[in-house]
């Protein structure tokens, strides 16, 4: 056997999200709508992911060891984890909001009665699951790709920091798939579908552009913020004759949390001096806009920093009254 000279690098790998038509079938190379994500970092599980299940050793002399009958690969419950970190552009945020809660039209509104689609059975028509394609990331490197079929988005975090990352709003999206990934040559830039390229995403949202930063209608001098939407996804069943693919997924409820770090002053303390839900509004000239009308503020803390005291305000976003009410909207246009 000779040593292989093949290798993979992040710099040589584009990441594309493709819209699927049928759960369990990867997005079409010919017709799927795709977007190349403005990714800065990513990670995913190895293709042969599994755990080991080990029987306890027997008692008594002469048997206090483990045979290969007592240790087995476990694949029926595996979930492949994928994480991508990317610049917050309108297109990238819209696409991930679509994967996470079904809204990708630029208003990106999560409401109390979501999700709208709950039937995730293998083989069913469904445009919510996505194929995640990592170019040149197969074992052979250049020319061999890796893609994950029928991924469900489990979380999106948006964060902005006035003194980090050039102020660019950075996003991290997490996905899970119960389908084993594929290593093969695959081109997820369809010939007849809509492809959103990196060159279409030249405008990224930035902390320095924020013109509205209010909580409970109090103006805050904001240093940083974070907003996270998360939900659990579980696999249902398995088919050991077909590489342990699932029979379906179950999805859990959304939890929307966040935090603000701002200068500690009369406005910031007034903003949190209430046990009733308050409105959060962040806006960059009404283009990039986060609105959460009913935030319940958690216990705040003080950072006694040399450049002035700051207040960190954690919160949970909720809806109020009818389930048609908004929990949070992430407007991008």
């Amino acid at each position: 056997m000779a040593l292989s000279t093949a290798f993979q690098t992040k710099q040589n790998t584009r990441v594309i999200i493709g819209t699927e038509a049928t759960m369990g079938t990867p997005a079409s190379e010919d017709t799927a709508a795709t977007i190349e994500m403005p990714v800065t970092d990513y990670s995913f599980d190895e293709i042969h992911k599994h755990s080991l299940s080990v029987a306890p050793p027997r008692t008594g002399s002469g048997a206090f060891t483990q045979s290969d009958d007592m240790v087995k690969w476990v694949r029926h419950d595996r979930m492949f984890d994928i994480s991508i970190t990317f610049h917050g552009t309108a297109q990238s945020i819209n696409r991930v909001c679509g994967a996470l809660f079904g809204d990708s039209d630029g208003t990106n509104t999560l409401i109390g009665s979501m999700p709208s689609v709950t039937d995730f059975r293998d083989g069913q028509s469904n445009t919510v699951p996505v194929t995640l394609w990592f170019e040149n990331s197969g074992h052979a490197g250049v020319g061999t790709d890796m893609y994950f079929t029928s991924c469900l988005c489990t979380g999106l975090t948006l964060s902005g920091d006035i003194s980090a990352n050039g102020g660019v709003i950075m996003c991290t999206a997490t996905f899970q798939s119960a389908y084993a990934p594929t290593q093969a040559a695959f081109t997820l830039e369809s010939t007849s579908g809509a492809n959103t390229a990196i060159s279409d995403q030249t405008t990224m949202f930035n902390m320095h552009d924020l013109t509205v930063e209010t909580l409970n209608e109090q103006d805050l001098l904001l240093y940083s913020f974070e907003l996270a939407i998360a939900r659990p996804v579980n696999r249902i069943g398995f088919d050991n004759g077909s590489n342990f693919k699932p029979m379906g997924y179950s999805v859990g409820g959304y939890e929307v949390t966040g935090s603000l770090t701002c200068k500690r002053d009369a406005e910031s303390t007034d903003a949190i001096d209430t046990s009733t839900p308050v409105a959060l509004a962040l806006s960059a000239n009404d283009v990039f806009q986060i609105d959460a009308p009913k935030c319940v503020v958690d216990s705040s803390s003080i950072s006694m920093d040399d450049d002035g005291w700051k207040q960190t305000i954690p919160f949970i976003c909720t809806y109020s009254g009818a389930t048609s009410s908004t929990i949070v909207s992430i407007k991008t246009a």
Partner: protein
Amino acid sequence: MAKYKAKASYKELDDSINFNAFGSASKHLWLMEGLEVEIKNVPNKLKEHLTEIKNKKEGGKK
């Protein structure tokens, strides 16, 4: 921006045809609840399943 309500026929549409298929799950859910919804561009395939609300200043979209 014009406001619309769902006709009965909208509520019978498959997810591959209704607003879920157009990346607007919130609009779909609002329409299913009988609310008036502001919609900038109505997809051609959905026009026959919606009723435009005219001359109303206040709507039901939350």
